């Protein structure tokens, strides 16, 4: 049997007769045995012989003949042996073989580094392998402990820790292999010159046969420090910098009143977290001789240094630092309360790790007052909790006819204050008992709770004054969420009975839940869209304003359209047929609204109020009354306010409602002054993230709900936006939940009903400038082709067509004026939609045929969205292209918009990070567009892909899009010949396809 021993500088192989008979065999026999196993039979043949004194338990010291290998030869031999060693090799051979392969792999993957050692007054240059971080080093330590005792059976090795033996093998072999690899080339001679700078002399010592670095002692000390400073990122990372100082607060134990906080080191790079307690850290004994020893000493020193840093955020730590080797601290109840309430957050913000007991989350353990409200006619609920009587707070008990019609926020409701800890209600006796203990942390029914004593006192006072009575629904919301009432009272939200419970839980009552899709709706609502319709109808019925805030692409417009149809074509008596709905929308989407209404609700009478010929005064009022829907732009809200105020509208609707984000803007003020019985807002932006927008939209929908701007700012804006108070943010979300319905594509109820790829047209209007240019180009083109023929005629048509497409994209493509804002309906719409994409933390591809258009979009996105998009076009080199793709695809990329020219980016790329694909202009070949779309919609895509195809209304783009959709023979021709088919048309036919229709252009002012 073969055995291997590493003596810290060389490898020795010896053999015994068998596993059971440990009589040694002659070196000649070892050469034969090894020669049979090795792929390089010359190695053992050439090896030198040695004699070892092996201490065998039970047999004593045996002198055995062996073969001796230098470090590099040892690697050669061990890696030339089969990976699955035969039974004639003992585990000692396997040990060094495993490490040899580790070294070889480390070197092959550039995992080695030059270092400088200091020992016994000498500085030596040495190459070392980089095995990895903490977990790899831990594995190596476990490996070292597992090596058989024979590996340490030589005199002097028995006292050597196995890890040091392993480390010496790794370092010596790595160093030897690298020196051998470079010796044949002229590396050494290039740096071995004198006089040379100290770092070059270090290199020289790394490459030649003499490891010692010769220099002035002061220079060597500086070099040593410089080298280790430089190596810090790799040597420290594996040992220390992944760790953070952590604090764990525990509950008092064994009758103690004190709360222990343990100190420890936490690495968050592993899952589960790796932790080392301070006790374990102090137990490690640093040795001055080894690198591991230095690391332990540094770690302990850094631990103390971090503790001192933490003292700034955790004042009680001062006590702990009195100990030489601190491992923790005990806190009084007030200190523990302060730790949970504020110190812990300050420590986390400063980069420390904090663990609190599970119950320490305030919403689970904090005492709060909850307002319970119920309709006036709700039945009383017998109450035995000490609060006299109350009423049922179970929304499930609401009955079908209990939902009143059009109650609004002014409806009177009964209220009743309740004290709660988390979700658990307290009786008066329990409450008073807790407060009487005068401690911020007390046990209640076997769980710890937190009591802010000052807030509890105020709560007690308020309860004494007014524990129940009547108030309006609007007041109930404001009081329950702290927008009116007393300062410092710990209000914690609202619970409701009967229909109010339905409202809070966003569950329409039973009758409204049965509303089917209206018969006159020309399409099919998805289940979540039907639920959206039911919810809109429910809030409508209650007289409350609703904000439908579904993700972009989920069909907010059609849910709203179906509401209009439902109220007109259900079993509604003629005498109560609703009046007109006034819809405000950005100019860039008015055309889209018209198209959607025509497509899904052809029975609705729609009036478009825009342009210089729009009606005013009595004529406007008369015309509006004769229609179901009046569409207009935000730009006219202020300008035509007198016209709008002539009617009491059945409903006022705001599309892209985030456009009224400035509550003081003239348009916002004007819209709020328009009389309407019902109000609805549509927005794809998560409005709870933009609090001024939220207030402005809510003030339009439900005036007064969120209090005055000052109250709202004090209660929510400052805590949430300036102080990052998550709890206050959560409270606000709870407050607005009854009025805001938001579903995202990832919601299970939505995702289950969506295809993996959703294609939709985005109809955009031309600005007056675009329309004028379009008409001029068309006229010039028709005029020039009139008298031309053959190739020249074709050329003129194709050139004209390109210019028409470009003017639909952006007038700046054809003029010297390179200003980009508010000149293109398409571009404005794209910017709005990309803003929503970024808001949702999603990613998009934008395809265009024109490189210059890509540059314009790149500039607009940078300036208006403060985002740096990538742009791939034909002029980009392959290397740069690959870098762009890698950048876009990597997790957490800062580039979430990728503009691509269709020719450069339409094929072969994998861009699955994107889940939106915008076709800014059209290729008119569905196959080409589909190939481009497939950059995102392909294997590896785990999200629903939304494809947005932009079409300019009333232009050649829309006519050809319609032809393609109809799948006629002509459509086939378009697909196969591209633009060429147009060149064969007569001038009259050409005019029919190209002429601009009157609906193409919208109001001239675009909102910013």
């Amino acid at each position, binding site marked *: 049997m073969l055995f291997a021993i590493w003596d810290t500088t060389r490898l020795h192989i010896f053999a015994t007769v068998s596993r059971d008979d440990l009589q040694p065999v002659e070196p000649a026999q070892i050469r034969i045995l090894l020669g049979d196993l090795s792929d390089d039979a010359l190695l053992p043949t050439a090896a030198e012989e040695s004699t070892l004194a092996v201490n065998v338990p039970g047999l004593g010291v045996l002198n055995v003949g062996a073969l001796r290998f230098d470090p590099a030869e040892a690697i050669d031999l061990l*890696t030339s042996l089969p990976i699955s060693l035969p039974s004639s090799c003992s585990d000692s051979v396997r040990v060094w073989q495993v490490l040899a392969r580790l070294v070889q792999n480390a070197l*092959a993957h*550039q995992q080695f580094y030059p270092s400088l050692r200091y020992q016994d007054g000498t500085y030596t240059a040495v190459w070392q392998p980089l095995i990895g971080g903490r977990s790899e080093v831990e594995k190596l330590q476990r490996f070292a402990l*597992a090596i058989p*005792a024979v590996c340490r059976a030589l005199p002097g090795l028995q006292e050597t820790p196995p890890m040091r033996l392993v480390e010496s093998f790794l370092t010596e072999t790595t160093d030897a292999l690298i020196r051998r690899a470079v010796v044949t080339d002229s590396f050494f001679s290039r740096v071995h010159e004198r006089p040379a700078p100290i*770092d070059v002399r270090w290199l020289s010592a790394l490459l030649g046969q003499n490891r010692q670095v010769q220099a002035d002692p002061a220079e060597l000390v500086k070099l040593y420090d410089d080298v280790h400073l*430089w190596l810090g990122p790799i040597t420290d990372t594996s040992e220390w910098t992944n760790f953070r100082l952590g604090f764990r607060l525990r509950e008092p134990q064994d009758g103690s009143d004190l709360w222990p906080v343990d100190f420890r080191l936490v690495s968050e790079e592993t899952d589960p977290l790796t932790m080392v307690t301070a006790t374990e850290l102090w137990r490690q004994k640093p040795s001055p001789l080894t690198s591991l020893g230095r690391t332990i000493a540094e770690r302990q020193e850094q631990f103390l240094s971090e503790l001192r840093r933490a003292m700034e955020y955790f004042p009680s730590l001062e006590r702990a630092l009195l100990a030489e080797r601190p491992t923790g601290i005990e806190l009084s109840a007030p200190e523990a309360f302060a730790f949970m309430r504020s110190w812990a957050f300050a420590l986390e913000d400063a980069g420390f790790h904090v663990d609190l007991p599970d119950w320490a989350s305030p919403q689970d353990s904090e005492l709060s007052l909850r307002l319970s409200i119920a309709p006036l006619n709700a039945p009383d609920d017998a109450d035995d909790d000490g609060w006299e009587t109350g009423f049922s707070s179970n929304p499930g008990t609401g009955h079908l006819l209990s939902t009143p019609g059009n109650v609004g926020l002014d409806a009177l409701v009964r209220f009743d204050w309740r004290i709660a800890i988390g979700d658990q209600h307290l009786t008066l006796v329990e409450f008073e008992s807790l407060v009487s203990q005068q401690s911020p942390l007390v046990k209640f029914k076997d769980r710890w709770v937190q009591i802010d004593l000052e807030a509890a006192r105020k709560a007690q006072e308020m309860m004494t004054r007014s524990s129940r009575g009547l108030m309006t629904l609007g007041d109930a919301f404001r009081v329950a969420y702290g927008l009116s009432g007393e300062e410092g009272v710990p209000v914690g939200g609202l619970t409701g009975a009967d229909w109010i419970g339905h409202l809070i839980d966003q569950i329409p009552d039973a009758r409204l839940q049965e509303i089917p899709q209206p018969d006159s709706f020309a399409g099919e609502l998805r289940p979540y869209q039907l639920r959206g319709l039911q919810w809109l109808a429910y809030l409508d019925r209650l007289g409350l304003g609703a904000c439908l805030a579904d993700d972009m692409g989920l069909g907010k417009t059609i849910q709203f359209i179906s509401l209009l149809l439902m109220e007109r074509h259900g079993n509604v008596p003629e005498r109560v047929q609703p009046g007109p709905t006034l819809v405000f929308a950005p100019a860039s989407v008015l055309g889209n609204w018209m198209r959607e209404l025509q497509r899904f609700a052809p029975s609705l009478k729609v009036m478009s109020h825009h342009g210089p010929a729009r009606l005013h005064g009595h004529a406007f009022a008369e015309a509006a009354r004769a229609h179901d829907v009046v569409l207009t732009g935000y730009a006219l809200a202020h300008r035509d306010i007198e016209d709008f105020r002539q009617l009491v509208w059945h409903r006022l609707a705001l599309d892209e409602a985030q456009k009224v984000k400035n509550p003081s803007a003239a348009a916002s003020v004007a819209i709020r002054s328009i009389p309407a019985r019902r109000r609805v807002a549509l927005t794809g932006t998560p409005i709870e993230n933009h609090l001024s927008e939220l207030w402005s939209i809510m003030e339009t929908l439900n005036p007064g709900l969120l209090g005055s701007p000052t109250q709202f700012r004090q209660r929510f804006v400052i805590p949430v936006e300036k102080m990052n108070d998550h709890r206050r943010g959560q409270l606000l979300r709870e407050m607005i939940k009854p009025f805001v319905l938001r579903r995202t594509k990832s919601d299970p109820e939505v995702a289950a009903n969506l295809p993996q790829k959703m294609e939709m047209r985005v109809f955009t209007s031309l600005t007056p400038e675009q329309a004028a240019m379009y008409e001029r180009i068309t006229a010039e083109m028709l005029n020039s082709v009139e008298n031309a023929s053959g190739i020249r005629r074709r050329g003129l048509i194709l050139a004209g067509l390109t210019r028409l497409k470009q003017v639909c994209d952006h007038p700046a493509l054809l003029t010297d004026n390179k200003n980009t804002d508010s000149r293109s309906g398409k571009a404005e719409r794209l910017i709005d939609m990309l803003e929503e994409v970024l808001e949702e933390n999603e990613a998009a591809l934008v395809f265009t045929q024109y490189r210059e258009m890509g540059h314009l979009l790149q500039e607009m996105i940078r300036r208006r969205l403060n985002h740096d998009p990538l742009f791939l076009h034909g002029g980009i080199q392959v290397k740069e292209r690959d870098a762009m793709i890698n950048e876009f695809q990597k997790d957490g990329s800062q580039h979430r918009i990728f503009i691509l020219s269709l020719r450069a980016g339409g094929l072969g790329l994998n861009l699955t990070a994107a889940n939106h694909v915008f076709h800014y202009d059209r290729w008119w070949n569905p196959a080409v567009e589909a190939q481009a779309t497939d950059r995102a919609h392909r294997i590896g895509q785990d999200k629903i892909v939304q494809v947005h195809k932009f079409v300019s209304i009333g232009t050649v783009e829309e006519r050809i899009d319609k032809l393609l959709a109809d799948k006629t023979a002509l459509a086939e021709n378009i697909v196969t010949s591209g633009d060429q088919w147009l060149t064969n048309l007569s001038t009259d036919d050409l005019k029919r396809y190209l002429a601009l229709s009157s609906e193409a252009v919208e109001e001239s002012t675009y909102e910013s």
Partner: protein
Amino acid sequence: MSDNELNLDFIDAGIDISVLDDLTFAGKPGVLERLGPAHFRSKGFSFMGFLQTVYDHVVDQMMNSPFHHRKEFP
């Protein structure tokens, strides 16, 4: 070092002898890439450039080592 953890068997290794079997370096960024430029660079000598050449050479040697991609013993 604890005697409880140390393998005392003379011939056979402990079970943790396999613990390094799944250790891999593939995909890790090269050491020079992680270290970045050395701040003690000498004038007129490209320290990092030279070192990178050494690294490339060593990697090349290792990859061409006859036993680098050894398969199982037949």
